[in-house]
């Protein structure tokens, strides 16, 4: 354009205008804001500090924002968040397991976040963040399950890496008799219900179970389900599970090199691999000993509708989904899958050879929630786990127990 006087003036005017807009914007943004982020992971011994340090990097980008932790023990997390949100209180941002995320999204307590993550290349882990057609959360972490084992114990017992249930029993028994360590670590008690039913989904999905049929009706007693229950009973009866130990105790034993095999998710495995006598290179992973892909635990992050700082929270979410946030999160998340396809760091893979298997399994893993009954998954699975408990503790027949569960499920749901 010709450098006329008029254009020069308008050019200066425009420059003046655009220079004041960021200044005005910055001025308006200066009002200090506190964002409360609730998560049970803040209390995790090893991970909590790292994860928080990753998030706090946002304060450098947005100095007027202060991030504040709300740490709630994982056993109480669901109850407390639901009660708080139901009463119009609660944190600004919550990091929650799938089940909780679904129920509060369904109850309308979360804010739509589609705009906040516009233009971000979200991967498949975010799919379930869309509830009733709207995106209410993005993936925080996805922890897939695999079969992990102590390689030293395996080699000492001369056992082979199992690819099916019978192989698992044989290998576990071999480890047990050779070294006196526990053969196979698994949840098996109602006291552990909230973790047990998620763990058991691996068995169910592994045997091809869909808890609902094509028409969306609940089918708890399909032949596949019976097979899954029977398989668990087989392992339970083999005497390789430390009956009576809860999962944290079993993980501690694994850390002390007292366990041969376990089915665990990447978060639990990360915990086992760090901070104990077990060296992370002795810990190996292999696909689950089932025909079909297993499950994963998914954590979502969402913004509360009751938050007084929704815009700021959305800005935070944008940062988190962006390259800086994802990079920070990646370094603290070990082997878990994130909202974007950021691969596990090389340094991590070098010291944790088991991480690669988890990455492969993450491609096909399934959610632990029952499609169409997401909010009701816990009480429905309680019927299934009570049936399983009858089978392993009282020797009931798997088919009969599951038929009973089916009957009750149809009556209640």
């Amino acid at each position, binding site marked *: 354009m010709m450098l006329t006087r008029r254009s020069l003036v308008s050019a200066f005017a425009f420059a003046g205008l655009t220079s004041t807009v960021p200044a005005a914007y910055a001025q308006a943004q200066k009002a200090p804001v506190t964002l*409360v982020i609730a998560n*049970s*992971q803040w*209390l*995790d*011994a090893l991970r909590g500090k790292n994860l928080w340090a990753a998030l706090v990097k946002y304060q450098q980008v947005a100095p007027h924002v202060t991030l504040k*932790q*709300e*740490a*709630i*023990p*994982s*056993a*109480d997390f669901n*109850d*407390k968040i639901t*009660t*708080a949100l*139901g*009463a*119009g*209180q609660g944190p600004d941002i919550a990091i929650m397991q799938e089940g909780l995320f679904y129920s509060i999204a369904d109850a309308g307590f979360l804010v739509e976040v589609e705009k906040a993550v516009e233009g971000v290349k979200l991967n498949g882990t975010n799919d379930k963040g869309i509830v009733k057609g709207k995106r209410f959360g993005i993936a925080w972490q996805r922890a897939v399950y695999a079969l992990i084992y102590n390689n030293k114990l395996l080699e000492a017992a001369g056992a082979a890496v199992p690819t099916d249930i019978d192989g698992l029993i044989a290998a576990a028994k071999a480890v047990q008799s050779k070294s006196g360590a526990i053969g196979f670590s698994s949840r098996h008690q109602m006291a552990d219900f909230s973790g047990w039913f998620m763990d058991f989904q691996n068995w169910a999905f592994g045997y091809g179970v869909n808890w609902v049929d094509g028409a969306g009706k609940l089918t708890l007693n399909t032949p596949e389900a019976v097979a899954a229950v029977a398989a668990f009973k087989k392992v339970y009866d083999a005497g390789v599970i430390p009956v009576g130990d809860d999962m*944290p*105790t079993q*993980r*501690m*034993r694994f*850390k*002390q090199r*007292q366990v041969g095999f376990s089915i665990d998710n990447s*978060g*639990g495995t990360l*915990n086992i691999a760090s901070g*104990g*006598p077990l060296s992370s290179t002795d810990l190996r992973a292999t696909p689950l000993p089932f025909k079909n892909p297993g499950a994963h635990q998914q954590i979502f992050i969402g913004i509360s509708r009751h938050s007084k700082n929704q815009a700021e929270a959305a800005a935070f979410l944008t940062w988190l989904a962006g390259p800086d946030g994802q990079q920070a999160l990646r370094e603290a998340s070990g082997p878990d899958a994130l909202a974007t396809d950021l691969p596990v760091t090389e340094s991590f893979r070098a010291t944790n050879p088991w991480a690669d298997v988890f990455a492969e399994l993450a491609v096909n893993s399934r959610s632990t929630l029952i499609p169409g009954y997401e909010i009701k998954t816990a009480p429905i699975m309680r019927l299934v786990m009570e049936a399983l408990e009858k089978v392993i503790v009282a020797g009931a027949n798997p088919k009969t127990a599951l038929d009973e569960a089916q009957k009750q499920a149809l009556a209640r749901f």
Partner: protein
Amino acid sequence: MNHLSKLPRFLLLGILAVLAGLPVYWMATTALSDESQLYMNRQVPWPQIGNLGSLLSAIAAVPAGRWMVNSLIIATGTTVVSLLLGSLAGYALSRFRFQGRGFIGFLLFMTQVVPEALILVPLYAMFITLGLLNDLAGLALANAAFSLPVATFIIKGAVDTIPHEIEESALIDNCPRFGILTMIVLPLIAPSLAAAAVIAFFAGWNEYLFASTFLMDRGLWPASVGLASFIGQYETPLSVVMGTALLFSLPAITFFLIIQRRIVAGLTSGAVKG
């Protein structure tokens, strides 16, 4: 009781003390063990003082002191409210004949059956309205609702056993009822007051559900919530948990010892005789 001679009594006491003390002794032993010993079934059956240093530093890594102060505040508040209102109610139920007396006794009793979980949601909503959320005083008030009836029953029972004559002379002198209560009756039932105080204190000290639901700030956590926060999703560091648990049990017992000795000493130094 003088119908039991010395040896059987001490034997009995010994057995009782072992039964009562074994878990606490085991807490101490576990607290002072190595993790590897614990999980490899090689737990040493006596406390290994050598591990005391690492235990203390592990405990120092969490704000255990802050937690205990919070517990103290809640427990004290619970006790004060329970005793104040409980004295009023207990005395009234014992001494006055008024309409609705039986009904009130029944109401007080009903409070003891209510599980905390049952009133959690409405209480939460009310606390929001009253601005008592995230407040230690709010917790004391919520706890006292459960301890107050117990204090009332205990105090009523104690006042029942005091002969009317003691108050009558004061009444004839036109002493106000309230004064009779505070200056004559309460000192006479001191052991029961102490018992009620201990019950309220322990209830406030140990309460978990309300504390974990109504508090947002980690800095306000009482000991019960702090302890629960150790139960991680992935691991429960047993020795540290046991050490902290032991630490948290001590103040409650100390409180009892202080109260009991003071008041019982005051009593036996000559008041009731003749």
